[in-house]
Every structure is written in structure tokens, then in C-alpha cells.
């Protein structure tokens, strides 16, 4: 899509901050929202406020159809076998917490092991630590190397007969490297280990097919892929989801409720207790339609151009260290985390902010990875398809000025 046209779809790109045009480079935290998403959100709020699935009245039927149509859209987008494999959540964090709870109540036993990649976001670490404490499990770590690439070479030695689950990000939110999920899946499945892929970043930048990835569970958030915040997905193989007990009780998750005991609904409803995010979930459909329309040669080339430009430009900055240097540049998404000698990430972010640039600074919800890299934090610039090469240039120019101010 022509970038000028694309930018018109995102009203927030017209905003100014401190009298300068907003240069939004914090897309890995939350993307901006296109008009189609805002329109759907508005339509659901202003015309179709009604609770789902239960009532027979017209408005509830429309709301339910919209909600289920989003489920079908997600299923098609990620290559699920059936929409019933798609569970709606509030985001990746809830998806993983749901899975951790339900697996803990069914498929793991005391002494089992969970293998977690070193580059994971806290949301793919802490739920497993909580489960490990509850069920007395052992957590092992799949390390990254100096480049930030996963040590697949030692993966077989980390898998034991007790390894029930392996948790890996499709793309790390710090390193921006596409991890070799298919290869990891092969090792895991040969060992009888289940594989969860955190797709929060990956789903935005990689063409994703859960069958091709060969994972068992896949989680992502709506708010990073242009849909409304408070939406998320947990996908799981039907046969596995069927084995899991409910997560929370009440609402749509029941079969029958008697004082003598209750039965529970089929998947995915078993996991969707309480009132759902009625206005927001339907926005996933226009959001994913937009992503599909951006999968053209022109769009992909533009994204590669940004990656190449920033790699070369950032590397040329004296004393700047990029975290996440894959051997193949094609494995890098337009997301760059770095530290600069003599310039604290917080100072840089404060100064860039006043220049109109929104970037992220700090630990990026990945403290173990910060420790591994030997830093207290980093600066991260994460690009979306609506960001231009001129914005990348402006970032580099502003960064140099900020560094000079600090080193001065």
C-alpha cells in the first residue's frame, strides 16, 4: 500500500507533541489504531451494546455474530484448524496465565520441568514461576548467544523426559530476532514436550501459520496488531484444549449448574468466563484485514529498507551497542534495542521525547535478558509499516544530538 495512503488511515499520526509532529516509534509496546478499527469499536459501542450468546433479541444476535466473526477471522489469519481453537483473552499476558493455570491443573505433575527461553518477556516467565511454586516444578532456561540468537545447539541437552513444556517468543520484544520456532518444535515434539509460542511481536511482523510453526499453543495481543486494547488470543490444538479444565468460573463457561456440581462448556467457551470485551474484540477483524493488505512486495521492501538503514546508521554511532544482531539480517524485524556509552537510556528517552519521538527506555519487561546483556536498561525504537524512512533518519539525527548533549 502507498505509505501516504496508509498513514492517512491512522489519525494519531496527525498529532503533534510539544509543537512537533509525533514520531511514534513505540509500536512494540502498543501500535496505533486505523480508522477501520476505530469505526468498528465505535459501531459496537454506539449501536450494538448487548451481552453475547445468551439473549434472543436482535442486538444481542448482532453483537454475538460480530464477536464470532472476529474469532473466525483470527482462526483464518493464524491458520487454525477451526475457530473453536481460538480463545479470546484480554491480551498475551492473560493468555499465558490462563494456559499456565489450566496446564497446572491437568497436564503437569510435581517434578516436571518447563524450559523457557532467556529472551522471554516477563509475561512468559512469571506465570510459569507462579505455577512452578504451586506445583513444585523446575524451570530451566534456554540461553541466547552473544548475537541474541537462541542456543538451539544445546536445546537437546536441556530437554529431559520431564520437560513438559517449552516457552519461546516467535520474536523477542527486545532483540527483534525471529526465532527458529519450527526447529525448536521438532526437538520438542521428538521429546514429547509441548511448545508454547509467544507471538505478541511475531504475529505483527511475520506471516504466521500455527500449523507451519508446528507449535501447540500460540498467544498474541490485539493492541500490538492495530486492534483495540484489552483483546488477545490463546490458540491451542483442539485435542489439547479439550483436556484442559476451566480457568475462571461463571458466565459463558458453564454447561449446567446444580448444587450437586456443575458441568462446563465446550472449548473455547469453557475459557471465556464472565462478560467479554464486546466492543473491542470485533475490531480484530478489520485490524487483521489491514495486516493482510500490507503483505505486498512494496510493503515488505519498505520494512527491509528501514531495517537496513537503521542497522547501518546505528552501528555507525560511536559507542552504540545494538542488542540483537542475527547472523542473517532477514531474521531481524524493524525493532532496535541499544545502549550508548556515556548516555543513559532514560536521559536519551527524555530528550528524544522533547524532540517529538516516542521510544521506550528501561528493562522492557525482560529483566533476565537485561542481566544477560549486562545493562540496567536499553533504549528501544520499534517501527510499524506506517513509519517512514524519513522518521528513521530523524531518529538517527536526533539521537546523535541527544548523545552530544549528554556527553558534551
Amino acid at each position, binding site marked *: 500500500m502507498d505509505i501516504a495512503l496508509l498513514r492517512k488511515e491512522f489519525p494519531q499520526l496527525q498529532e503533534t507533541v510539544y509543537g512537533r509532529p509525533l514520531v511514534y516509534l513505540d509500536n512494540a509496546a502498543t501500535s496505533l489504531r486505523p480508522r477501520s478499527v476505530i469505526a468498528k469499536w465505535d459501531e459496537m459501542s454506539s449501536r450494538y451494546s448487548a451481552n453475547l450468546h445468551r439473549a434472543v433479541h436482535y442486538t444481542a444476535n448482532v453483537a454475538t455474530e460480530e464477536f464470532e466473526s472476529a474469532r473466525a477471522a483470527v482462526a483464518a489469519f493464524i491458520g487454525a484448524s477451526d475457530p473453536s481453537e481460538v480463545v479470546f483473552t484480554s491480551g498475551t499476558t492473560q493468555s499465558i496465565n490462563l494456559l499456565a493455570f489450566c496446564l497446572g491443573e491437568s497436564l503437569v505433575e510435581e517434578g516436571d520441568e518447563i524450559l523457557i527461553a532467556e529472551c522471554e518477556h516477563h509475561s512468559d516467565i512469571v506465570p510459569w514461576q507462579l505455577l512452578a511454586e504451586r506445583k513444585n516444578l523446575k524451570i530451566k532456561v534456554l540461553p541466547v548467544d552473544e548475537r541474541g540468537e537462541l542456543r538451539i545447539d544445546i536445546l537437546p541437552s536441556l530437554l529431559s523426559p520431564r520437560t513438559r513444556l517449552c516457552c519461546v517468543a516467535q520474536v523477542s520484544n527486545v532483540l527483534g530476532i525471529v526465532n527458529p520456532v519450527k526447529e525448536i518444535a521438532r526437538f520438542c515434539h521428538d521429546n514429547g514436550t509441548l511448545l508454547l509460542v509467544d507471538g505478541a511481536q511475531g504475529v505483527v511482523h511475520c506471516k504466521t501459520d500455527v500449523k507451519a510453526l508446528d507449535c501447540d499453543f500460540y498467544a498474541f495481543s490485539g493492541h500490538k496488531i492495530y486492534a483495540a486494547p484489552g483483546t488477545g488470543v490463546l490458540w491451542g490444538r483442539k485435542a489439547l484444549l479439550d483436556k484442559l479444565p476451566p480457568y475462571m468460573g461463571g458466565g459463558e463457561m458453564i454447561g449446567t449448574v446444580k448444587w450437586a456440581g456443575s458441568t462446563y462448556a465446550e472449548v473455547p467457551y469453557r475459557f471465556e468466563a464472565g462478560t467479554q470485551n464486546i466492543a473491542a474484540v470485533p475490531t480484530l477483524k478489520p485490524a487483521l484485514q489491514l495486516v493482510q493488505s500490507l503483505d505486498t512486495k512494496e510493503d515488505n521492501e519498505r520494512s527491509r529498507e528501514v531495517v537496513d538503514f537503521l542497522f547501518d546508521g546505528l552501528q555507525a554511532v560511536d559507542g552504540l551497542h545494538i542488542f540483537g544482531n542475527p547472523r542473517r539480517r532477514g531474521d531481524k524485524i524493524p525493532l532496535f534495542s541499544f545502549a550508548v556509552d556515556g548516555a543513559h537510556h532514560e*536521559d536519551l528517552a527524555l*530528550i528524544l521525547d*522533547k524532540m517529538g519521538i516516542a521510544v521506550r527506555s528501561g528493562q522492557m519487561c525482560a529483566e533476565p535478558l537485561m542481566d544477560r546483556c549486562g545493562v*540496567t536498561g536499553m533504549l528501544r525504537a520499534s517501527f510499524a509499516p506506517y513509519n517512514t524512512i524519513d522518521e528513521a533518519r530523524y531518529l538517527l539525527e536526533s539521537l546523535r544530538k541527544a548523545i552530544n548533549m549528554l556527553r558534551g
Partner: protein
Amino acid sequence: MNSIEDAKRQVEEDFGMYEQWLDKYEYLIDLGKDLEPFPEELKTEDRLIKGCQSRVWLDSRIEDGRLFFRADSDAIITKGIISLLISVYSGHTPAEIAADDFGFIERIGLRENLSPTRANGLLSMIQTIRREAEANV
């Protein structure tokens, strides 16, 4: 020694000279660089101020009934901000410090120009200074 009120007026005057925020940051960076060196051995866990994205250490001591502060941070703008606070509050009696409303931070527009997490950090610095003062009244 000048009163807290005099020191605050001085800071407001100095800070007010700059219209652009980038210039205010330049000023804070200079203040941060000029801050008296902080002994490495004082960079302990109990001197770390919670709630800051960067690490901030604050040390206080009583001399002749007056409270003196020293501080450091690994981020230079934060160091500049804490230098402002020290220039106003260090060297006064705990009673004087505890009685102050710390409103000058708002008057120079510092708090609303920091993001919520950083504003929290600033608030933590102020709370720590106030707590130290109250504990010594």
C-alpha cells in the same frame, strides 16, 4: 545561610530563564555534572530510592542540627533534578524542611513534563527527603 524560600526563588528564577524544554534539559544536565561526587561506598541498597527508572541514591546526615543531603544517579537529567532538590533543601533544619510544601516543583513545571513513571521517581525523591526530615524533627 539563605532560607528555603530564597533557595526556591533562586531555582525558579534560573529555571524560568529557559523557554524551551531542551534548554531546560541542558541546564539540568549541567547541574547534574556539577553535583558534588558521591562516594562509591554509599551506593548501597538502603540508599536507593524506589520508584525511579534510573538508579538514584540519597544519603543524609545531621550536622549541628541541620540536615545535609548528598545524592547520585546513573542518569544525568535525574541527577540534575536531584541537584535542584539538594540546592533547596540541604543544610536546613529538619523542622524547616518538614514544614515545606515542595510546591516549587510544580511551579517550575517539572512534574507535568515528566512521564508518569518519571514523575513517580521525582515524587519518591521528594518523599525520601521529607521522610528524612520528619524522622529528625
